[in-house]
């Protein structure tokens, strides 16, 4: 129960405080880490599919409420990514920053790809230019930012607890 609370506090802080406070502070030329996705990666790896899917849905829904033009898109993508990340939990090499960074980069790219496809389905012509001009730099920066977050989580005993 205590671990459950600590994990939830950590991912919520990472997602919201990171996205609102830290992200704008460390943004470089409009490129900023996607802290909600880093939080989702953490939650998937720390708690598994079930919590990551539910939390992903809620976090995505909250993001969607800020821009209801595609209401449900983030919720859908975050749920799916949360589930997949939870399933990856047993298949990753534990404790390797490179692996965590690669996972974060991949998650951002898959999320953005999915989102741009959904945008395209709704009539917006944003693909593929935005994918290369916005998503790739954001993904790389997210991968970079994910490493200290995951190290912090490991240091706090929230990740790889069963090892």
């Amino acid at each position, binding site marked *: 129960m205590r671990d459950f609370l600590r994990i939830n506090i950590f991912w919520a802080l990472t997602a919201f405080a990171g996205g609102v406070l830290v992200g704008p502070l460390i943004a470089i030329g409009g490129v900023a880490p996607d802290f909600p996705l880093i939080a989702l990666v953490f939650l998937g790896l720390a708690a598994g599919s079930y919590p990551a899917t539910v939390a992903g849905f809620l976090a995505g*829904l909250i993001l969607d409420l*800020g821009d*209801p033009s595609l*209401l*449900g898109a983030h919720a859908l993508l975050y*749920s799916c990514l949360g589930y997949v990340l939870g399933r990856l*939990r047993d298949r990753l090499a534990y404790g390797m920053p490179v692996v965590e960074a690669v996972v974060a980069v991949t998650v951002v790219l898959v999320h953005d790809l999915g989102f741009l496809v959904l945008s395209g389905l709704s009539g917006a012509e944003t693909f593929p230019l935005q994918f290369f001009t916005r998503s790739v730099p954001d993904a790389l920066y997210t991968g970079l930012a994910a490493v200290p977050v995951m190290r912090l989580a490991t240091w706090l005993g929230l990740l790889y607890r069963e090892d």
Partner: protein
Amino acid sequence: MRSGPGGISRRRELAVLVLCCAAAVTLLILPPNARITVAERLGRVLTAPYWGARNFLDDMATLRRENTRLEHDLFQAELERSAAELARLDRDRQAGCALEEGFGGLLAPCRVTLRQRGRFATMVRITSDRPVPWRPWLPVVNRRGLVGRVRTIVSGTTAWVELMSAPDFALGVEFVRTGLLGVLEPREDRYVVGMVGRDEDVRVGDRVMTSGITEVREGAVRPDAAGASPRGIPVGVVTRVDVPNDQVFKYVEIAPPAGCRRNETVFVVLPADAEIDGGRGRRP
């Protein structure tokens, strides 16, 4: 292979995923107007408190910036008006609290960003929105009068200010009504004007302003410290006058109108050769 925390089965995990996806897709396929209506209703519950708090904080920051600018403009207008008043009073052989006509210094608006809440606070930290070419011992004022002097420069935008209550604070002052000079010093919880002869004409209610004569301090860039502290900044009002039998000087106590009791806007009075805001700094 684990099935998740708490022994949740793979089938249940899949069921949750399907449920979440179904909910998300349902939202996605809603007509645009219905989507916005749903988002609006959900937002009232899920995100309204957050956005309310965040917008409030954003508004506060904006208001603080605007307030700083407005205070700056207002203070300048007041100084211009009082300078004209001083010129008129000088013609009548009187005087008033105002920077002397022809003073070409700049006012750099700053916010008090750190101040001790204790009774014995002697320093505050001030921060400017833009780099300021400040130097030690430049006067710091607010709209009511002198607050203190720049003591330590941290960076182009941050400096520590020595308040008038600092133990080694001393300042050349002038009684507005008579033009009499004295030296202001803090003494415990009071402010005393020393070096005023026992036969001089000083009354309760007399206004006191900076005389333009200040100490030459170590670290002051210019030897003429008067250039850093112009004549005419209000310092206080005389609240008590005594003539001790065994003293050659009067005991004159004043109450300063200015102070740092909250995180307010203050102004660093820069010398005439300073430039802020890319050379567009305003002169009082």
